[in-house]
């Protein structure tokens, strides 16, 4: 973890200070560098990634969930899903990423994959309903990408939404960056 933060994040994206590390346990002592807090910049997607550049003007909405997934909803009613930097930091070095299959139909709350890190299998859930239209095959051979660029190139799947982007963008289970930040501070 410290290696990641020092080497990859160059001090730009630190984990939040929290007394109880949500999913990391003692093995990922992010609180030891805890004077740095998240701000809204921590929740920005990598604007060079496919998840962002899929539409020329970028996603219409970027949303988050309490289970630490992010969602980039594009105007063609598809959404890219990944896990947040916070989740990736807490989990530690990933050794395997399970991605769904193209054609899978998912409902809100269905598992769409999992991350294995330091012997922990952690489920990833879809916060939206629809059909998987693309998966990130790079993750299958390069699981470490989820630690390097969780909010960008390490998107997990692209889902064709059952509803329009505008409707999904208003879903109650989806948080804005500010709301997600607030939920992290509560913990």
């Amino acid at each position: 973890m410290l290696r990641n933060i020092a080497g990859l994040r160059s001090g730009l994206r630190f984990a939040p200070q929290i007394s109880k590390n949500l999913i990391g346990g003692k093995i990922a002592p992010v609180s030891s560098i805890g004077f740095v807090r998240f701000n809204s910049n921590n929740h920005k997607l990598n604007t060079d990634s496919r998840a962002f550049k899929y539409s020329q003007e970028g996603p219409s909405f970027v949303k988050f969930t309490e289970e630490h997934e992010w969602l980039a909803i594009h105007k063609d009613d598809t959404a890219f899903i990944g896990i947040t930097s916070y989740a990736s930091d807490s989990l530690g070095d990933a050794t395997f990423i399970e991605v769904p299959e193209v054609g899978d139909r998912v409902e809100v709350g269905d598992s769409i994959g999992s991350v294995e890190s330091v012997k922990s299998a952690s489920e990833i859930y879809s916060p939206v309903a629809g059909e998987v239209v693309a998966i990130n095959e790079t993750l299958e051979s390069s699981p470490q990408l989820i630690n390097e660029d969780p909010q960008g190139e390490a998107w997990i799947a692209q889902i064709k939404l059952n509803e329009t982007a505008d409707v999904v963008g208003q879903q109650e289970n989806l948080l804005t960056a500010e709301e997600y930040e607030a939920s992290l501070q509560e913990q």
Partner: protein
Amino acid sequence: MFALFRNAIARKTCDLNWTRRLMADVPFGDDLTPIDYGDYNLEDFLHYQPNNTNTSKPRQEDSSNFPSDEFSKAVVSKEPIVFVSKIKDPHWNLAIEDFIYNQMPLPSDNVANYNRLFLYSNSPCVVIGKNQNPWKEVNIPLLQSLRIPLVRRRSGGGTVVHDLGNTNFSFMTSKANFDRQKFSSKLVEVLNDSKLLKFNLQVNERGDIVSLPGADGKTYKVSGSAYKLSKGRSYHHATMLLNSRLDVLKKLLSRDETKLGVVDAKASVESVRSKVKNLEIPSDDFIQLAIKGFREEYGITKDDTAYSNEIINKKNDGDETSVDYDQDELFNLKDFMTSTPRERQVNVMYIDESMSLPTEIKSTYEELKSWDWKYGATPKFTHYFTNEEIGIHVQIEVGKHAEVKDVIVNVLENCQLSHESVFDSFRFLQQVLRTEPITYTGSTVAGYITNDQISDWLGSSIDGTI
């Protein structure tokens, strides 16, 4: 984190030093034995008597046959509970664990705890991690011939071998309270204080329990951990080597790559080898100590504020999933509450074959037993086989759901058969592959190969198909 990184390096070096290390290491836990040049000593298995220290009755309390509806109520009850399984079938135990885990109610705050501890021992079996490759980790033909089950669990981590000399503990709590080391640390404290051990223990950075360095400066692993995190909940389960037949069991993980082929599974999770040792205490003693640790850390007292508040909350919030019932009456507390005056208390429920278990457990059991889960859940991989005798090299590409995607055949210089006849014998297989998926079993693949010698060889190399 650092440990994982170190292990990756350690794995590379130990491949090079394999033959030397084979003598020093007793592979178990997360351990892997890619090659074993020794013979299998199969007679060991014929005389294999599971250690019987586990079969005696628990000394302290007994459940006297719970009806299944009480089990169903216990799994959703809003208090910490210990479950002890007397069932020895690994698939049933994993299915029960899964059920207890998924039924565990989640507290509305971080104060109340509805934590569970599940204790169980399995008859001999090999358990692989969720994202592992059994062809790489396990000597499948040997397992098949000995009828020792292969089990894929739902948590991460590496391959372990179980027998009745091993007792497993599974600590379940909310996701917010997930901690890779906390329960192990408590357990180590209780075990070290028990005065029953021949050597003291500590928790390492991977959450495994190891001996304190002895005179030789070495530590030995006695317990290997794996974890699962899902919506709102988490578990930490682990083995505890008490009186396992390590010498016998390690053979199940020994693969001779010249016979069973080289598995290139770059996407899957590899096991980490460690030196292991038995704790040499009876299973009953360990179970009682584990319950003690859980009770001291998570037990409740009747005037426990958090507990009382939770009961009040439960009555006020009209939560339709919670059923109001008298805890004392339900669990007949006076008879089997593990407690001493004014100390924390915890209920213990024993599970045995006489109980009729919920149907969900049965369906999980069926799923865990299925080929689709055990083998079919393997991440895609390539399996390379070389037969020096015949003089051919076969490369099999296996995709998701363990379906054969491609078979590539090369003829070696010393091939006894005509090149044409070698390629001919794979023609039917390759033709079928273009039109329908073929599951990666020895019998299926061998069935499409028209040369008997090649067919027998590949079938037996894949999974012991004769």
